[in-house]
């Protein structure tokens, strides 16, 4: 494994960030108004690497909140009137700088939905493939982080092309893929160091962070229960009682990917687009006849957690559909907490 060192003081770091923007559209965590941090295009700004979890997850870099798929004209004097065509897409390579390991892993979870044996979503896949993930390991977990028990961890490498580890005055960077190698070249970060020593230093940082987790999610028994057993459990009423169906949880979650398709017309031209949607909204499942299979909030809250903690687990056998970033826990206005719900599910036994 190749490990590269960048000293922060020498200007090499900022220089590299500038250089790589000749080849990539580079994103990183930046402060917006007040204390809101999100992934933004860097330009000449330096990413804020102290912030751990941005408000919004970086999922929008690969899967924009609104994305044009097709375009058309309704102008009857035109020959191609009513014919759907593919819209041009910006195919420029993207680099996400300072993405945390949990968020990087979330793309692998979503990929199972968009890249299947039967169908491939060309928008999601091409965007994903054009993106290089330059991750930053977490030296300290936040109080609401439970990535480790969710199956990932603060130094998790799955889904990353590069792993930066912060040693205050310098970074050590593990080069994980050819894509990562390419980015390092473009940024002219080429100071290769003795990897045995470097990997040992990284490992000790990792262990020290992992020891500091104060919170976890319980999932060990979920697999052995049947869908209907959990679905019919009595705690859903109580757990969903306070929910406002505001959709914050699905909006900020890196592993929520549900979307809607809408036509938007402007004069005679129009586009067919994909927009983020949420299982927390009644319209999500409303039939044209007025019937709604998930018409009340208890059904919708149950859907969100059953999807993440049971349906996904059963469908793919690749763990739960949650990377433990803690965003939904932190931002839910009424403190609905996936850890508490998973605990209830995990410990539930139906009495026959």
């Amino acid at each position, binding site marked *: 494994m190749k490990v590269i060192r960048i000293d922060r003081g020498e200007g090499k770091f900022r220089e590299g960030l500038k250089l790589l923007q000749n080849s990539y559209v580079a994103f990183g965590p930046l402060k917006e108004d007040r204390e809101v941090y999100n992934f933004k295009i860097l330009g000449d700004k330096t990413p804020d690497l102290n912030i751990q979890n941005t408000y919004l997850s970086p999922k929008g870099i690969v899967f924009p909140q609104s994305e044009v798929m097709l375009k058309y004209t309704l102008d009857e004097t035109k020959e191609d009137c009513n014919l759907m065509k593919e819209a041009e897409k910006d195919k420029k390579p993207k680099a996400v700088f300072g993405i945390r390991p949990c968020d990087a892993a979330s793309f692998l979870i979503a990929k199972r939905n968009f890249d299947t044996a039967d*169908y491939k979503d060309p928008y999601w896949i091409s965007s994903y493939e054009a993106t290089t993930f330059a991750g930053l390991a977490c030296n300290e977990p936040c109080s609401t982080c439970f990535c480790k028990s969710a199956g990932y961890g603060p130094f998790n490498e799955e889904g990353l092309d590069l792993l930066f580890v912060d040693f205050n005055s310098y970074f050590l960077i593990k080069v994980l893929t050819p894509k990562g190698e390419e980015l390092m070249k473009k940024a002219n970060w080429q100071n290769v160091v003795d990897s045995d020593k470097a990997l040992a230093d990284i490992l000790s940082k990792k262990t020290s962070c992992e020891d500091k987790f104060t919170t976890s999610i319980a999932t060990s028994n979920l697999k052995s229960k049947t869908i209907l057993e959990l679905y019919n459990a009595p705690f859903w009423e109580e757990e969903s009682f306070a929910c406002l169906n505001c959709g914050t949880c699905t909006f900020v979650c890196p592993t929520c990917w549900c979307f809607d398709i809408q036509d938007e017309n402007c004069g005679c031209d129009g586009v067919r687009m994909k927009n983020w949607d949420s299982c927390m909204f009644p319209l999500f499942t409303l039939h044209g006849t007025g019937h709604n299979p998930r018409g009340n909030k208890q059904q919708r809250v149950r859907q969100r957690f059953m999807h993440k903690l049971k*349906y996904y687990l059963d469908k793919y056998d690749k763990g739960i559909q949650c990377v433990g970033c803690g965003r939904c826990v932190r931002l839910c206005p009424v403190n609905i907490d996936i850890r508490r719900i998973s605990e209830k599910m995990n410990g539930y036994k139906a009495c026959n």
Partner: protein
Amino acid sequence: MQNPYLPYPVRIAEIITETEDKNLKTFKFTFLKKEDEENFKYRSGQFSELSVTGKGEIPIGIASSPTEKGFLKFTVNKVGLVSSHLHTMKVGDIMGIRGPMGNSYPWDILEGKNVVIIGGGFAFTTLRSSIIYMLNPENRPKFKEINVIYGARTPGMLLYKEELASWEKRDDIKMHITVDAANDPNWKYNVGFVPTITEKKAPPADKDTYAIICGPPIMIKFTQPVLDKLGYTHDHIIMSLENRMKCGIGMCGRCNIGKEFVCKDGPVFTLAELNKTPKEY
């Protein structure tokens, strides 16, 4: 990479108003490109997304049969945004079709078996496709007895009236058409709700007899106990679901019942399968 969101362009070749309330129209489409027609290989029970440019898409069961070449047929109820707009369109108009989607009726299992088709209201579309498919001279020998129980509110609300009449005349299919109430003094078929007629006319259950049932929830609710009474086991009762859909390819997340997506893993399920999933349909 093939784009599964891009519809094939089609032209409306014919429009037939099916019912006396004029809320149901059958649209016949032809493909603008020959190669698209060749790519569109489907089985009875599958559906498509009909794309009305500038309005959106709706999932509609394919009413034509794969044995009918050169066109596709769909029967559309006027409900909301897209279906109402479709009802205003004219022969010659251009729109789009994506598909075919979904799993279809289990034709590999149904071969060599007795098939009982039970339909109500306008949910007869993919059942029409299935009947035409089975009655095709090449296919008919592959099936044993075929029974069809089909009901609507009034004679004027039945779909595909001419075809129903022609099937009535055949001896290789047993038709049991019924209406809730006949307002026509010349009505010569059954009167009564579908569950009642099922109880009287459906063949007894055995391991070689499968029932396919499609209709409004209320009809299904009352027909299922009748089939239970007749001894049909739940893995011999086949149903097609209609959840709200958008993508039709298992990605947008809205049509699930438990871990199954109705658009991709369905829309056809046996009752035995449905018994194991949340009743979110």
